[in-house]
């Protein structure tokens, strides 16, 4: 069985069942926005939502994470967390699944990140496909993430009376095995699925005015563009765009002592390239002075450097960075102005040389 179906009226029974199997996290309303939260009451789950304030990354790469405990006299260290618990991320958008795939690449790169890997092993992802745009800030179609592209255990698609379930892993299969209310999808179901996908093609259109290859090339040539100065002038360096981005993974570590001053805990805490001191080194030299070069770096970390390194774009198209920016710096606008500059202006000197020297990973 590769595709199954569940009647909408049976969804809550299944959710009850799931919450008995593992810790269940799902989107829920918070004021005028949405957040992922542990599910206490199934009726609070929002199946139709715009991307949550923070992506589900907070569950596999927490904001402030305990790494290990230590003692000074006598010196001793011990893992802060010995066992990780099973958890289900429910109703994850396809863009956020792409975000998980990106961080998977990062944290599996040598040296592997054991905390992430331990959590990942316990993580079950149940996605939900968007049939309409969340809002005007998303650029998921250009990034190819408006449709499921793997990286999940189960994927839900609303076909009217029922949800189709795409079973994409053994873990996913186990969550529906033996349940009488989940049946193998029949021909009519599959036809409906096809229709839904067809209808989507009329709604979802590339948001960026150029192919990804074109965008990559444009970034390569517009490192010195005045567009970065304009973005930098408006940016207030609040760091929101990086905090909310599903593919940002920078962190700092800090040791916190107990009042005994002999025992403590090492934490890892989210950090951001938008912070003033981020690229400062001993001696006070700053490799990314100015909000313009820090903003530029953020964009290059989505559309150029990871493509060079991993052959993968690190923007999922979720639109969070634009949504959260009080200075109204829009990713779609920035990329489109670069594309416009590219088609309208003569060739600029290549940026690669500068990028390789000044802008490491």
């Amino acid at each position: 069985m590769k595709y199954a179906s569940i009647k909408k009226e049976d969804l809550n029974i299944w959710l009850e069942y799931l919450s008995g199997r593992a810790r269940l996290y799902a989107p829920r309303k918070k004021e005028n926005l949405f957040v992922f939260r542990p599910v206490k009451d199934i009726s609070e789950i929002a199946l139709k939502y715009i991307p949550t304030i923070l992506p589900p990354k907070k569950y596999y790469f927490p904001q402030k994470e305990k790494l290990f405990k230590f003692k000074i006299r006598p010196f001793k260290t011990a893992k802060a967390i010995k066992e990780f618990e099973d958890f289900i991320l429910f109703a994850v958008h396809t863009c956020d699944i792409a975000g998980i795939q990106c961080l998977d690449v990062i944290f599996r790169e040598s040296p592997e990140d054991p905390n992430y890997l331990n959590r990942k092993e316990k993580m079950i992802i149940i996605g939900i496909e968007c049939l309409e745009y969340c809002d005007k800030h998303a650029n998921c179609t250009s990034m190819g993430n408006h449709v499921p592209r793997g990286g999940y255990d189960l994927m839900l698609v609303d076909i009217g009376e029922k949800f189709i379930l795409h079973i994409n892993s053994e873990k996913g299969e186990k969550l529906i095995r033996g349940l009488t209310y989940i049946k193998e999808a029949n021909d009519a179901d599959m036809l409906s699925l096809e229709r839904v996908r067809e209808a989507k093609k009329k709604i979802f259109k590339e948001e960026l005015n150029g192919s990804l290859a074109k965008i990559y090339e444009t970034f390569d040539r517009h490192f010195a563009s005045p567009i970065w100065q304009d973005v930098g002038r408006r940016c207030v360096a609040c760091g929101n765009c990086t905090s909310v981005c599903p593919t940002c993974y920078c962190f700092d570590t800090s040791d916190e002592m107990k009042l005994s001053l002999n025992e403590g805990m090492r934490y890892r805490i989210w950090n951001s390239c938008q912070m003033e001191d981020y690229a400062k080194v001993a001696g006070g030299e700053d490799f990314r002075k100015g909000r313009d070069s820090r903003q530029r770096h953020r964009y290059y970390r989505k559309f150029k450097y990871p493509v060079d390194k991993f052959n993968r774009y690190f923007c999922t198209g979720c639109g969070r960075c634009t949504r959260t920016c009080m200075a109204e710096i829009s990713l779609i606008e920035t990329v489109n102005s670069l594309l416009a500059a590219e088609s309208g202006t003569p060739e600029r000197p290549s940026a690669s040389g500068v990028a390789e020297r000044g802008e490491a990973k």
Partner: protein
Amino acid sequence: MKKQFNPERSRGAKPKVAFFDFTDCEGCQLQFANMGQALLEVAGLVDIVNFREIMSEEGQDYEIAFIEGSITTDKDVTRVKKIREKANVLVALGACATIGGVNGIKNRAPLELAKERVYGKKSDTINTINTMPVHKVVKVDYFIHGCPAYIPEIITVIKCLLMGRPYVLPNYAVCTECKMNENVCRYEKDQECLGPVTRAGCNSWCVNNGNRCYGCRGLVDNPAADGQKDILLKYGLKLEEILQHFTLYNDSMGEKYDQAFK
């Protein structure tokens, strides 16, 4: 040369700590009293010799001085200098001490006018100078920002000073903490906030509790004052109101935002 505070020593005799008040509301000292369990633990590590302004500067022995309040008279200047001479470690506690705080409002008018407004006919018997944060007069070893100071940060600073380590102040915006707390940004609700230019460290205390950030921890080292001004203008604030936002706590630190208003 300044005597260095020796953390090893604290393992034997407890270092003596004194608190001094200048121009302030004593709210930050109250935060010590509000520490609960941690206060008992702190009391086990240090010897608090004086908790109120009534002590004389020279009279008692102390190594660590907490200064609460801003410097607003010539007498304050002399007094804080004396304390600095005696103390090995000097801590500025709370917004008044670290950035001048609300007392900075005095600096907005010429001194004579300010005096007259407050003291009327008796104004010439009063000595007053422009409000200054403590570090404008003497060297400050540790800054504990906030109005009032944030208890977890007070405890962190105490640990740092007992270990003889510096406390590195965050140099990023309150927004960073606010986002980690996954608050709905006030700007998403068409409400203003000074978080983007204000120094983090309070765990976005006010926003977590439904308020805006008032900027009580002072501005980050290099605030994007003009960018912030543009944002506030866009959200419908008038220039005068924006200036009031910036100066509520930070008037004595004027040079940091002046560029945006000239």
